[in-house]
């Protein structure tokens, strides 16, 4: 564990980051920036896994495995979402969420 840093401080940091990402996800109107906010959310959950593994159960590696899986899922999701966004831009010439209503009905 890190010297002179308690688990409460690290969990506070991840909570702050999580709600910053949530705020960004709720206020942004552009698909790419919303995707960036989602990346921030996934990252904070990964840090939480790692911190709890390191501070509370330092003799096993389960948290590290789970964070590797989360990173892989996040990478796959980002690649797919960006290809969808680029395709949508070709169709609509816009990446604003208010103008993407193709799948609404």
């Amino acid at each position, binding site marked *: 564990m890190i010297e002179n840093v308690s688990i409460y401080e690290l969990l506070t940091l991840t909570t702050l980051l999580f709600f910053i990402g949530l*705020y960004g996800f709720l206020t942004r109107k552009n698909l790419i920036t919303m995707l960036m906010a989602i990346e921030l959310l996934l990252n904070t959950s990964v840090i939480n896994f790692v911190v709890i593994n390191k*501070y509370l159960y330092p003799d096993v590696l389960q948290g590290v495995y789970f964070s590797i899986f989360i990173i892989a899922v996040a990478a796959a999701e980002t690649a797919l979402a960006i290809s969808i966004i680029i395709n949508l831009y070709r169709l609509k010439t816009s*990446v604003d969420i208010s103008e993407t209503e193709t799948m609404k009905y």
Partner: protein
Amino acid sequence: MAIASVTSRKILRAVIYLLMSLLAIAAIYFMMEYNFLGAVQMAVYAGGIIILFIFAVLLVHQIEGKLEEPSTGRKIGMAAFSLLGLGITLFTIYSHEFKVVEATKAFDVKDIGRGLLGTGEGGFILPFEVISILLLAAMIGAIIIAKGQKKEVKSS
């Protein structure tokens, strides 16, 4: 840094702020002596995903254009919602007492590999294979989404 990343109105600057916060997260991993995880974080996020974002921004957007500012009422409402959630979560964290344990053994990359590919107790071989199939499917799906449009037009 993260606040700047979700509030900056120039989209390319927002991407760079996101890169900085991801690098800081990698630094946290290095400080906790999970060197492999820090390296993965830097390679996958800072190397791969940020490059993808920059390409998408450059393909989709006019760089000089500023993003549309969300309305003030919406901003205040969402900020209040986030702060409410933040307060509840922090209260829960601080009212719970964690039993911090000292580490008794050190791990290196070999242990991570053994655990990921182990078939015995605590082995993660099945999720590992499932995640590799998922990555393959996502890659094929991305290629088909990016290419399929033209084919349909040609055949119909």
